[in-house]
C-alpha cells in the first residue's frame, strides 16, 4: 500500500534534503570562488537556478501524473498531481523573487520584460489557475479530471508561450540584458548548484509525499483500512 510506504520514505527524503542543502550552501557560500564580473552578489545563483529548474520540472511531472490519472482513471496519480501544484507554484514564485533580488544589483532593476522572466511569470499564472480550478470544484473526482485537462492544455501551450514571448522580445528590441553567464563556470560553482538542485528535488519529494498522505486521509476517510493505522487509532 502506498500510504505506509510514503510514511516510511518521507523522513529519508527530508533528511537528504536537509543534508544536501547544508552541503550545497556551504559549497556555494564558502568554497565557490568569487565571480570576476559580478562579485559576491552572484551567489544567489545557488538558490535561483535550482529553484527555476524545479519550477519548470514540477509542471511537467504534474502534467504527467495528471495524464496518467485521466487516462487510467487512477486516483492516486491525480492526487499526486494536485499535491505537486502548490510546491511548483512556490518554486516559481521563489524563482521570480530571487531573480528580482539578483536583478536589482546586477541590472539595476527588479524586473525586465525579458523572455525568460515573462514566461516564468505566465507559468506562475498557470499554476494558480490549476489550483483555483481544483479548489472551486467540490467533488474531488471532477476536480481531479478538470485539473488534469487544464494541466495538459497548459503543457501543450508552454512551448508556444515560451517561443512567442521570446520572439516578441527579439522582435521588439535586441535583448538589453541577457541571463547567460560567462561561458566557463568554475567547477565548484557547478557542484554547488547541482547539490542545491538535488536538495530541492529531495525536498519536493518529501513535501509532496506528505501532502499526498494528507489528501488520502481526507478523501478516504470512510475507507476501512484507515482505521487500522496506528496514528488514526491513537
Amino acid at each position, binding site marked *: 500500500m502506498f500510504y505506509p510506504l510514503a510514511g516510511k520514505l518521507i523522513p529519508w527524503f527530508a533528511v537528504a534534503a536537509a543534508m544536501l542543502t547544508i552541503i550545497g550552501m556551504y559549497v556555494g557560500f564558502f568554497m565557490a570562488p568569487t565571480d570576476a564580473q559580478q562579485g559576491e552578489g552572484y551567489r544567489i545563483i545557488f538558490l535561483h537556478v535550482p529553484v527555476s529548474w524545479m519550477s519548470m520540472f514540477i509542471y511537467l511531472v504534474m502534467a504527467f501524473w495528471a495524464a496518467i490519472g*485521466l487516462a487510467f482513471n487512477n486516483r492516486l496519480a491525480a492526487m499526486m498531481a494536485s499535491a505537486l501544484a502548490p510546491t511548483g507554484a512556490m518554486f516559481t514564485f521563489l524563482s521570480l523573487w530571487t531573480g528580482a533580488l539578483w536583478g536589482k544589483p546586477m541590472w539595476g532593476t527588479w524586473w525586465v520584460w525579458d523572455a525568460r522572466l515573462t514566461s516564468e511569470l*505566465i507559468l506562475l*499564472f*498557470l499554476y*494558480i*489557475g490549476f489550483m*483555483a*480550478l481544483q479548489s*472551486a*470544484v467540490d467533488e474531488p*473526482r*471532477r476536480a481531479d*479530471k*478538470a485539473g488534469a*485537462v*487544464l494541466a*495538459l*492544455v*497548459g503543457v*501543450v*501551450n508552454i512551448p*508556444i*508561450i515560451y517561443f*512567442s*514571448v521570446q*520572439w*516578441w522580445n527579439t*522582435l521588439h528590441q535586441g535583448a538589453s540584458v541577457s541571463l547567460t553567464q560567462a561561458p566557463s563556470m568554475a567547477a565548484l560553482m557547478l557542484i554547488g548548484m547541482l547539490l542545491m538542485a538535488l536538495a530541492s528535488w529531495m525536498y519536493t519529494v518529501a513535501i509532496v509525499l506528505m501532502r499526498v498522505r494528507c489528501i488520502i486521509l481526507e478523501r478516504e476517510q470512510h475507507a476501512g483500512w484507515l482505521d487500522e493505522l496506528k496514528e488514526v487509532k491513537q
Partner: protein
Amino acid sequence: MSDTIGLSVLRGVIHRDLRLAMRRKSDVLTPLFFFAIVVSLFPLGIGSERDTLRQIAPGILWVAALLASMLSLDRLFEQDYADGTLEQMALSPAPLGMLVLGKVVAYWLLTGLPLTLLAPLLALQFDLATPSLLVLAASLAIGTPVLSFIGAIGASLTLGLRGGSVLVALLVLPLYVPVLIFGAGSVDAAAVGLGATAHLSLLGAVLVLTAFFAPWATTVALRIALE
C-alpha cells in the same frame, strides 16, 4: 446515414445558436459596447497625445478585444447546461466534437466577428494609418477564433462551478498570451514598415493548432462536467 462526420449537425447547431442569440440581442451587443468603452477609457487615462496613442493603439485594441471576447464565455455552454440541452447533445449519436465546433463557430460569429469589424473604426480614434487598420482587422479575423476555441476549453472546465466567470479569466488569460503577442505584434510591425506576414502566418498556425485540439479538449471537459 451518409453524413458520418456530422456536417449537418454542425450546420444545425450553428443555426440554432444564432437564432437563440438573435432572440436576445442585448446579450450580443453588451460585449461590443464593453469593447468600445474600454478602448475609449485609455485615452482618458493616458492623455490624448497623438504619437503616444498611435503607439499604444494595437496593444489596447487587442487587449480590449481579448477581454470582450472573454466576457461572454459563460454564455457558451451555461444555458444549455442549465436546461439539460447539453446533456441531450452529449447523449445524441452525433459526434460531440462537431457539436462543440458548431457552438464555438456560432459564438465567434456573435462576438469575434463583430469585434473584428468594429476594431478598425475604433482604431481611427487612435489615428492609426490605413495599412495598419487593414492589418489590425486581418489579425483580429485570424486571432479571435483562437480566443473562442481556447475560451471554450475554459468555459467547459468551469461549467456549473461557483464563481465560474472569474475563474474562467484566471484559466484562459495566460493561454491567450501567444495570440496577443502575435496579434498586436503584427500591427506594430506593419506600423514600422516591417511587414506583418510573419506574425499573421504564426497566428494562422496557432489557429490551425487550436482548431484541431481545442474541440477535443472541450469535449473531454464537457463529459467530465456532465458526469
